[in-house]
């Protein structure tokens, strides 16, 4: 009997070696990024960002073109959807496509405008893929354009966008999951948006070793999707933090306003100046790293109103204003001006969302749902028509806890300055 079992276990150990699922590393084409575009004729174009094994081994970290080879390659194929395109792509590849590390998904603007219902399912269904992934809309471009760009700091541009996103103050690499959750909530989705950024000023290369700024991929802000999951519009880089703050997701951000004179209320240096985009002026920058938001729905009339109290803690990082920051009263002045400026800024963005996108990306509906579930039952059906006309009372309360390494500036007191 015992012998039988030994024979059995030997036989089992032979089958247990996992021959069916054996997949050597050098038989795999590891996908780091995946892009989908919609073409004019209605076909989908998929682009894959693949790791080039040799390049990443030979220490080619110094970017794009070490030894004439870049650290990544892109391959593309037409298809009816994701998996179909993947199969069509496979005919060009000597290795099996392996999507287990597919952490970044790019969506072309055209496809986003037509709606992402048609392609998003696979990202949550395929068992090979992990749920923690980033999804981006490429503003004014196709996914393929964005994915083809080499990135200097990283071997692979797909890794680069993931890292850029991590440094933006938004929740780290879970935008796909958040999209699914928010689309199931009050109906609107939101994704980070990328764009191709040419250098601000073009400088020619004078010698071989010069390295002037190049056209690169950058974060544009956030793309807002409406109830049909079609692109409704974008929040820019200096706008998208508003939504993150209101929904309690913002991690860090610096804000700059203008304070031209010692007396904060003097004309010529109001909060509006900073809003108008004036590039000149005496600026103060505050770095905030603790954010809190408190949304209170109030039911008095027909429509609910909201009191939104936004709190933050930070310190002053740059002060070009005439204020002497060694005096606590002046820090209070900065606080007051900053609160004013932020309230206006936030109000501007909120109005834009209400009027242009008509989509509740601030979780206001969710707040009613959670705090007043029975009232929500009456409101939920018409929420998208109610939302644009909601009255929001926004208050910002910053708490500045420090002024950096110096109180008074190291520069001598300037004209009109405060002793």
């Amino acid at each position: 009997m015992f012998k039988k079992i030994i024979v059995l276990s030997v036989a089992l150990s032979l089958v247990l070696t996992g021959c069916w699922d054996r997949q050597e590393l050098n038989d795999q084409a590891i996908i780091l990024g995946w892009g989908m575009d919609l073409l004019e004729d209605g076909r989908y174009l998929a682009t894959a960002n693949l790791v080039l094994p040799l390049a990443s081994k030979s220490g080619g970290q110094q970017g794009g073109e070490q030894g004439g080879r870049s650290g990544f390659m892109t391959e593309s194929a037409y298809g009816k959807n994701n998996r179909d395109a993947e199969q069509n792509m496979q005919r060009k590849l000597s290795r099996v496509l392996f999507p287990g590390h597919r952490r970044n998904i790019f969506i072309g603007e055209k496809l986003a405008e037509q709606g992402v219902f048609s392609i998003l399912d696979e990202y949550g269904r395929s068992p090979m893929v992990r749920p923690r992934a980033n999804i981006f809309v490429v503003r004014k471009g196709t996914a393929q354009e964005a994915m083809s760009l080499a990135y200097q700091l990283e071997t692979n541009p797909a890794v680069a966008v993931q890292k850029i996103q991590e440094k933006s103050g938004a929740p780290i690499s879970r935008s796909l999951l958040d999209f699914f959750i928010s689309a199931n909530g009050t109906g609107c989705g939101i994704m980070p948006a990328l764009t191709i950024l040419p250098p601000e000023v073009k400088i020619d290369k004078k010698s071989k070793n010069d390295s002037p700024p190049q056209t690169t991929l950058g974060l544009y802000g956030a793309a807002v999707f409406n109830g049909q999951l079609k692109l409704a519009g974008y929040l820019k880089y200096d706008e998208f933090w508003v939504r993150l703050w209101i929904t309690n997701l913002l991690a860090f951000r610096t804000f700059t306003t203008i304070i031209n004179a010692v007396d904060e209320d003097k004309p010529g240096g109001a909060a509006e100046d900073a809003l108008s985009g004036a590039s000149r002026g005496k600026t103060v920058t505050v770095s905030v790293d603790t954010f809190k938001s408190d949304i209170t729905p109030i039911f008095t009339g027909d429509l609910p109103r909201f009191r939104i109290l936004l709190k933050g803690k930070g310190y002053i990082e740059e002060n070009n204003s005439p204020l002497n920051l060694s005096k606590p009263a002046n820090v209070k002045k900065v606080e007051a001006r900053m609160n004013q400026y932020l309230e206006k800024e936030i109000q501007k963005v909120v109005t834009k969302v209400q009027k242009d996108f008509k989509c509740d990306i601030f979780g206001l509906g969710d707040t009613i749902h959670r705090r007043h579930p029975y009232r929500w039952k009456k409101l939920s059906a018409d929420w998208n028509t109610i939302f644009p006309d909601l009255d929001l009372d926004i208050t910002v309360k910053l708490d500045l806890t420090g002024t950096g390494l110096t109180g008074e500036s190291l520069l001598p007191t300037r004209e009109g300055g405060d002793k």
Partner: protein
Amino acid sequence: MKINNRQLFWMIMMLEIGINLLITMTATIQSAKQDSWISYILAGVMGLIITYVAARLSSRYPRQTLIEYSVVILGKWAGKLIVIPFFLQWFWVMGLILRDEFLFIRLSVLYKTPAWVIIGTMIGVVFYTMYHGGIEAIGRVSELWGPILMVILVLTFGLTANNLNWPMLLPVYADTGLWSIVEGALAPVSLLGEAVLLMMLFPFVEHPGKETRKALLLALAFSTILLLFGVLWVIMTFGPEVSGRLQFPFFEMVKLVYLMEFIQNMDIFVMAVWLVSIFVKLSIYMFITSYGFAQWTGKTRSWKKIIWGVAPVTFILTMLVITLNPPSGLLLKSVWIRYVLPVNMVAIPLFLLAVSSIKAKVKHQK
């Protein structure tokens, strides 16, 4: 073959947690939404009552298994007939958990490996353990792996805590209502109620008695608490809508672990431990089926020979389930909750307990 109370505690823990984490959550969240945690508390309480009734019944016959004392209570024919639903249940459980194990493994790790290899190897290991160690080996395995399972689960809860968003749990009650919550509790209670198989294990405990009952109830309470944490974590991670649509929400949650860039891909640990708990569950069922069948046919001593029959039958049954591929949500609802829960877990133990105590009273009066 003897096990002690502590081993019994860990056996019941392993038995309850593994499969419950995998398959009941979706069903519960679909009906009870963000109030699923209430369903789990409710399920825990009902599970405790079911276990208590079964334990009380077994305490009256501490040296006998269900198969033996049902004959004592009801007489030869009725006693033998009334345990038939249990045999059906045991075979059914073995077939289904093997099927679920196969589905899960195929989806997560081994995409191309044929079913018979995954099923066959598992049955092979279980067979070997049962043939050589019997219930004692399983007791020791549970005692060893149970704490490891706990550590891994606690670690999982800790490492996924940064994803939690507690407002997802609101509003409480308003969206669902009593009926949905009770309906949501059915799936977990029908699995927690599996603790009734203690009626087969009771006589194997060294000193069956009060301490044994305590160990059983504690095991059930602890399992409920862990499952409660599991469902709270899942809802706070994914929200009720998304988690109600995921097939294995708990494991998707584990996949989300991402801390300091280097702590990632924890799921393989959880899966390994989960497989051990499936192994324990399967072994216990294999044992009670074989032993119970041996007692039923009156050949208790040759129960090991019966494993030679039970193992292949289980294998064939599982392959049949895999081929027919009935949806597991449907099976859980239309068979397990509709028949097994009320008949095997509630009606029969209660009935036996009632008859037994009436008999005892009548005897006493005489």
